[in-house]
């Protein structure tokens, strides 16, 4: 690293070879991100193991299995074990999720990430650029509309999975939440769909991380991004 020499247009007069770094991700965000990454992985894996015990959304009699989840992609080993993981990591997941949301609200950073009606028109140009070799839309904000859509959807799925999980866990105590979801039975479907939401987000997210390379990935570790694209 120390030997890297950065030749830049505006630094001809510079003696040493300074690097340009931008502080992109405050530590709370990075902390919540990594804790959540682990928690989502554990909750999805154990959730699939739990689902194996009754892989259906219909009645018990007659039982029609919806899909056969391969053991390989499950965690916890057995129903009881998976429930232990699930009931432990639900606290970690909700904790880090709350930390993130509260932090974003308190600092006002939510304005950068929240997908709003104004972002709708920008989704297609960005998708065209990413997936269909379209022209690159101008970058004038921290996150492009497609990113906002993706990140906002994870918060949405996080809230949905938490609320539906509460209904599954305590349908009697949260009867009003159960009622909002169409009853205990439907809460199980919503809970499953919120997992599908995470599963839809993760591959796209990982592909983008791979495409943008180490420098971008490392900024989610240390916060500092080297040679940010918006600084000439």
């Amino acid at each position: 690293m120390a030997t890297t020499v950065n030749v830049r247009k505006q630094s001809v007069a510079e003696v040493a070879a300074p690097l340009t770094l931008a502080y992109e991700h405050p530590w709370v965000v990075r902390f919540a991100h990594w804790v959540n990454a682990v928690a989502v992985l554990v909750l999805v894996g154990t959730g699939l193991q739990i689902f194996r015990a009754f892989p259906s959304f219909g009645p018990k009699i007659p039982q029609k299995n919806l899909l056969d989840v391969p053991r390989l992609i499950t965690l916890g080993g057995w129903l009881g074990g998976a429930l232990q993981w699930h009931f432990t990591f639900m606290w970690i997941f909700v904790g880090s999720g709350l930390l993130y949301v509260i932090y974003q609200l308190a600092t006002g950073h939510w304005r950068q990430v929240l997908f709003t009606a104004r972002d709708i028109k920008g989704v297609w140009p960005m998708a065209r650029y990413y997936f269909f070799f379209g022209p690159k839309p101008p970058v004038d904000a921290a996150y492009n509309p497609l990113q906002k859509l993706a990140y906002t959807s994870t918060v949405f799925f996080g809230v949905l999975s938490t609320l539906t999980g509460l209904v599954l866990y305590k349908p009697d105590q949260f009867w009003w939440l159960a009622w909002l979801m169409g009853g205990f039975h439907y809460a199980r479907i919503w809970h499953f769909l919120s997992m599908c939401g995470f599963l839809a987000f993760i591959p796209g997210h990982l592909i983008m991380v791979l495409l943008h390379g180490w420098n971008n990935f490392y900024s989610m570790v240390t916060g500092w991004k080297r040679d940010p694209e918006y600084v000439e």
Partner: protein
Amino acid sequence: MPDDIRGEPKPAEPEEHPQPPTEPADHGAAQADQRVPQAAAQSDAAAQPREAAAPAVLRHAGPAGEEVRRVAPAERKRMNRRELLKLVPVVALGTFAVPKLRGPLLNDGLHLSDWASGKLFGRARLAQTFPNRDVVAFERFPYNFYDVADPGVDLDRWTLTVEGLVQHPGEYKLSQIQALPKVTQNTRHVCVEGWDVIGSFGGTRASDFLRAIGADTSARFLEAECADGYYESIDMETMLHPQTLFCYEMYGKPLDRGHGAPLRLQMPTKIGYKQAKYLDTIRVTNVLRADKRGYWEDQGYSWYGGL
């Protein structure tokens, strides 16, 4: 430290989040003007003398007001290291990967969840009840056997043994239990596997029977032992819930052998495996034996099992 990148001292920008330049082309120039030996950073510098010669900070030069700095590679290493340290708590999650620690940690998680469940429980909060048309046909109410189908209880000579912290311990006939007011309710039975079924149940309110036997309702638990070797323990709070039954009827008929004749627990505020069948002995107690908390609980399932 390269000095040349430090600009002329200027007053720090009053605005915390200045609008980003509308023209991206102006960006570079705009930042060049913003090069200031950040006034705000002086407090930083006071705390960390090492940073006294801190490099220039291009304040809020990013599109979202990110702090941008130009630093020597060595300084970058230091900055990264400092930020990495802040993430050390994430490594704590790695304890779950250590086999020796995993068991106790997951046990703690389960206990925390059970504790919270107990706090959430409202004795006056009733589980949902359903009209007859929502009740599933008797044939479609599952039998759930854990290892034996039928312990072969002699229904004519059956008695319920009552022990522990009660004024009137002894053997109770089914007729004595049935002499107390009968309650019929259509409630949901939720299995830990994920399925649920609405059934019709009839029996004696557990709180009525506990009062009849002079149970110490300030005791913490009720233990149940079953004719098939199954065993359970329930918190007293739930035993006194108005919908908790000593159930001897389903769908208006005496409990059949598959469903636990002649007497079982029926608690719509608890998950399926807590609803002990083939009741043989009940015991009011303040102490649970570590390996006798419940058939499934002793294998790792939640003890509280509340809904």
